[in-house]
């Protein structure tokens, strides 16, 4: 049996607003096995980003359980959650979220700072990843000197630098044109082939088709799931 990287059961999330509690996620259940490649789709406001943020341990659910890599997130200390964000998960944002002041190399190496890696190794590993996403020439540029597609590559390199088991991407191609989107998706495809589990959110069907499995959100619930994909070949 394949081990579940993500196991979400009866998850609820409500935002406290001035007009009272505003429920966004209503009983969401999802299992994602190692090596899976999941695309989450659904109309605007259906709760996709809210769900991704909970998966990324950036936000906490109101009720229900989230077990990540065998550990219940709700029982973790703040430092343990930080460590999970640092080492288990690589999060890719729609808006790239790079540090404007830092060079691309420093941006990619930043998670390693919090992992306590030495400077030489930080830079060595960041260099390898920038090469992998085809940006070794721009190592010392700053984010405002490169295109959106290139910024997203840097963000992906940063997400990968600590060798996470899971990549979460909320509309990673949302700000990019279709050609650039295809280039970014090619990177994700390659990562999944290397065995990294990927969950991404997208509005576009052709992007979603890169994934092995499509999950559809509607009004805070999963209304459609192409099912847990059988592992192609590498299943053990």
């Amino acid at each position, binding site marked *: 049996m394949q081990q579940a990287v993500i196991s979400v059961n009866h998850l609820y999330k409500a935002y406290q607003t001035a007009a009272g509690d505003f429920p966004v996620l209503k009983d969401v259940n999802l299992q994602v096995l190692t090596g899976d490649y999941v695309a989450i789709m659904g109309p605007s406001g259906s709760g996709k980003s809210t769900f991704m943020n909970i998966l990324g341990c950036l936000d906490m659910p109101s009720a229900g359980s989230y077990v990540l890599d065998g550990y219940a997130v709700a029982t973790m200390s703040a430092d343990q959650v930080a460590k999970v964000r640092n080492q288990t998960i690589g999060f890719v944002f729609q808006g790239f979220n790079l540090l404007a002041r830092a060079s691309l190399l420093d941006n990619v190496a*930043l998670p390693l700072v919090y992992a306590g890696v030495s400077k030489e190794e930080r830079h060595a590993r960041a260099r390898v990843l920038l090469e992998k996403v085809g940006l070794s020439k721009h190592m010392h540029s700053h984010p405002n000197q490169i295109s959106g597609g290139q910024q997203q590559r840097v963000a992906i390199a940063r997400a990968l630098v600590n060798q996470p088991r899971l990549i979460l991407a909320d509309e990673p191609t949302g700000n990019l044109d279709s050609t650039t989107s295809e280039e970014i998706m090619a990177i994700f495809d390659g990562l999944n082939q290397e065995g990294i589990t990927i969950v991404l959110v997208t509005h576009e069907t052709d992007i979603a088709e890169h994934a092995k499995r499509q999950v559809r959100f509607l009004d805070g619930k999963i209304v459609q799931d192409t099912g847990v994909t059988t592992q192609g070949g590498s299943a053990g």
Partner: protein
Amino acid sequence: MFSAMLGEAWHAMGANRLRTFLTMLGMVIGVSAVVLMMAIGQGAEASVKRSISAMGSHLFVVLSGPPRMGGARTATGNAPSLNVRDATAMNELYGVVGVAPVTMGKGQVVYASNNWNTDIIGTTPEYMDIRGWSLSAGYPFSSSDTRSATRVALLGKTVVQNLFGEEDVDPVGKTIRINQRPFVVLGVLDSKGQTLDGRDQDDTIIVPLTTAQRKLFGNQLPGTVRQIMVQAESDNVMGMVEEALNSLLNQRHNIREGADSDFSVRNLTAIANSAAETARTMSLLLGAIASVSLLVGGIGIMNIMLVSVTERTREIGIRMAIGARERDILMQFLLEAIMISIVGCLIGIVIGVGGAILVSAFTQAEVIISSASVLIAFSVAASIGVFFGFYPARKAARLNPIEALRYQ
């Protein structure tokens, strides 16, 4: 990890140079004020201490005329009530090691074409020891000079400068005129500098008591003096000696108990010590006032750090999203605050020390730059960085990652 954070803090400081500079300015002004004020205060204290030791220790001065409230001493038209025999009697008191009757007045001094107006002190040879005068040239007069009222004089440095000028004339052996009368210069007094109240102690001439009385200030009753200096053996016997002096003089002057006396005994050492106390209080006060500006500087740092945390909320969110712990964020902002205050402090020390050197160069005031005061300023500044940086840093560390990321 730590060095990476130091580097980032350094970077962040450079990101908004003008703002960092202005924030630092508060620290710079505060620290330089503290260093400067402490230098001036300690200098003042030291010069007070020096003039106390120059004055001589365990000293009383017995003044003729009734004691006055408030200690103001004005010249009375009356003849002095003390005389030389009082001084001789005091010598017999237990605990007294030296007595010197003193009469004084102004004198016009002439040497060649040079003219100078100065204080003339007529006294006995004991005076030199009691007041701690020593000679840089020549030798002192003796009791035989006092007995026979010889016309010899010891000149203070200021008098020598004004009479003999810059020329390399050895004053010893030269004849000068004091109030028209010729005097032979016997010796030159070692320099003592200024008194507590800023008078030049070197602007003086010492002559034998009898010479002063008979040949310079002839209008006084023979044998009377305006004051008698008395030196006690040690601090411990000061109280006893004071009482003994009072009862001795009351007895000698036939003053009944309860009646007004015609003399007053003053403990000079106590007066000097209270002056030293005043100087210390002043220097503390100066330091305290300067510390207020340090506090204001600290508040400036806190203010800017709060602005910085708000501005960089998104950055904080990003850092948290990729694995920064609360204490990483806390350290980052704390380091920034500490760095601003320490760099500001270093600049402030340089300016403060420079200012102190300027002050000592352009005024007569003595300044003392002690490494202790620099160290204190430095550690206070560093603590201010920690203290005022902590709240903003904690505010940053406590941010919720998703809310921080959403912040526009």
